[in-house]
């Protein structure tokens, strides 16, 4: 019985060790090395819709690496005409921008600022650099809905100067900067698409029913369209700002907090469990001894 107890004790220690160490190892492995990242770049692909992937590495780690090193990646970026050749493939500016959409909103603004810095400093011979500022996934409609934020306004005004020779871009930028597109985030996206992310102090404008109300006021006989109450209410559409916006904390910190919180929770649960188990065992033993 004693041997069995000690064996169980050892097994519990072993389990405890794995529970504590495995997430640590996992969190350490989550940081891709420079060599691994370079290899992942060779197998990377990106698409006009903003989707990207890598065939030689984990996409989440690849994204994390870009989000952690976006500044140095932007500063060292060099255009490569031979990206068709897998052996000579380098990281494209498009892919950096797509991955950077995973940054928290404030840091994404930092990213756009830096992107403007390098575009203003040098002509890279890009095909249409204004499209780099179009969020495709997590930051879809980001500039449109956050147009009132002073930093977003500054970015929009810098773009208007930089792309002065592109009338299509200028038209879109002016519409964005004047807030005309602030409620169009639900336009022509999949029904289940998430709402745009907002900066501190910015609330989403409700897009539903605006045009329909206008039509009904102009043509009383018009009965088309769904009932105005069919869509989500304004209250449902508003969402709090990203918690990370409250302070511009390093991305690695915000990403890595969860394993430690999990470990602490697990440890607490484990200690309580062991204490309860041992209390139960003692009671059993005492009962047996008393019984004898």
């Amino acid at each position, binding site marked *: 019985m004693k041997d069995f107890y000690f064996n169980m004790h050892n097994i519990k220690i072993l389990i405890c060790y794995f529970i504590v160490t495995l997430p640590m190892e996992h969190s350490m492995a989550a940081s891709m090395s420079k060599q691994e990242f370079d290899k992942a770049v060779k197998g990377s692909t990106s698409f006009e819709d903003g989707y990207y992937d890598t065939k030689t590495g984990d996409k989440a780690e690849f994204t994390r690496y870009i989000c952690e090193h976006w500044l140095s990646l932007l500063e060292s970026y060099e255009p490569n005409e031979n990206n068709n050749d897998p052996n000579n493939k380098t990281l494209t500016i498009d892919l950096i921008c797509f991955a950077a959409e995973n940054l928290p909103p404030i840091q994404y603004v930092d990213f756009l600022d830096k992107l403007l810095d390098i575009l203003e400093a040098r002509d890279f011979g890009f095909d249409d650099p204004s499209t780099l500022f179009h969020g495709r*996934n997590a930051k879809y409609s980001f500039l449109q809905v956050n147009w009132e934020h002073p930093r977003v306004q500054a970015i929009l005004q810098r773009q208007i100067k930089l792309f002065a020779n592109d009338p299509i871009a200028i038209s879109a930028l002016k519409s964005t900067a004047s807030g005309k597109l602030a409620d169009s985030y639900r336009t022509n996206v999949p029904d289940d698409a998430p709402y745009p992310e907002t900066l501190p102090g910015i609330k989403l404008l409700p897009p539903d029913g605006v045009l329909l109300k206008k039509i009904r006021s102009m043509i009383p006989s018009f009965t088309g*369209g769904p009932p105005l109450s069919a869509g989500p209410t304004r209250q449902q559409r508003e969402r709090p700002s990203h918690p990370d916006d409250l302070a511009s904390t390093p991305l690695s910190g915000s990403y890595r907090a969860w394993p430690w919180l999990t470990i602490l929770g697990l440890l607490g649960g484990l200690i309580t469990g062991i204490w309860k188990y041992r209390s139960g065992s003692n009671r059993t033993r005492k009962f047996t001894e008393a019984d004898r």
Partner: protein
Amino acid sequence: VTNVEPVQIMLEVAENEIFGKVYNFQAEPNLAVNTFVTYVPAVISAEGLVIGPNSVTGRDRSDGVCLTPTDKLQANFSREIESFTGSKLYWQSRKLKGDGSFESWTTMVPSFFDGDEEEEVDNHRRVDIITDVEPGVFQLRAVWIFLNGSQIEFPYVRMRDSRSIKNGDQIPLTNKLLKAGELDFFGVAENEISFKVWNKAKSFLGSTRYSFAQEVETDFDNLFSPSLKNCNKCNIFVTHVAKSVGATTPYFYLWGLSPHAPIARDDWYSNPGKHIALEAYGWKYGNNDIDVAPGSVIAAYGTGHSSGHVCVLDYDGSWIGAGSKTVNKFINLQNMDAHYLPFTIRKR
């Protein structure tokens, strides 16, 4: 004829400024029988013939050869080869499937609309062919077979780069399959209206009208249709193209925002459509293996927030679609990424 000695064939492939890749071959039959020794530049060309009651006209082939099932395909070998006694020229085609592979090569049967029996009997001596076609996307080749069984294959190749074959990257990538010298195709639309859809879609190649930043009205015929700006417009491009030639697609009510929202990629992809039934408007769900034909609409479900794509199929298996900057045909069934899988095809 039966005494002809085996011929020695020498083939060289050269680049020609006008024709791109040119196949030069030197044939030395038994010199005692035939002293003909020369280089013959062989170029395969193809053309669609529209045969009316009183006339035969050629289809516009500036952006590739595309026909309808009522048309005839005329394929030409650049030089006559009757001099090589006993040799025969066969024309073969093979159909592209949705997964980028091909059905096997099949020999094309000549059809003669002028009823010339003599020509029909001796058809394999002819170096050109006029033949009936069926819907699909096809590669074409001429196969010259000699008495000893040896043969040379002359593929139908692209004379020039196809238009708008670059993607939307800042340093754009080019789809090399669509460059001069690569294998070319001829396409046969399901019917006249699909042909018109293809014809309209390819007329936008290179256009920035449906770019991400561009402002576009969703429905030109509706006073209250909203103008969209700063959003993906591949579905609007397909909607406008289809509507402009009479292959109308329905609009629907989206979140109450727009009384005339164009159907989305999901509607093309799903069966039945997510918002509205496309079948009722004549857009039938196709089979990816057998319904690859120009003018059909191809939709990929995609992954991510705004991803997925909807395009019009080109005569060569490319996807003509509105990208972030231009309407382009960078994606091709033969070398596309898994990102565009799975996809579905709808046809009129």
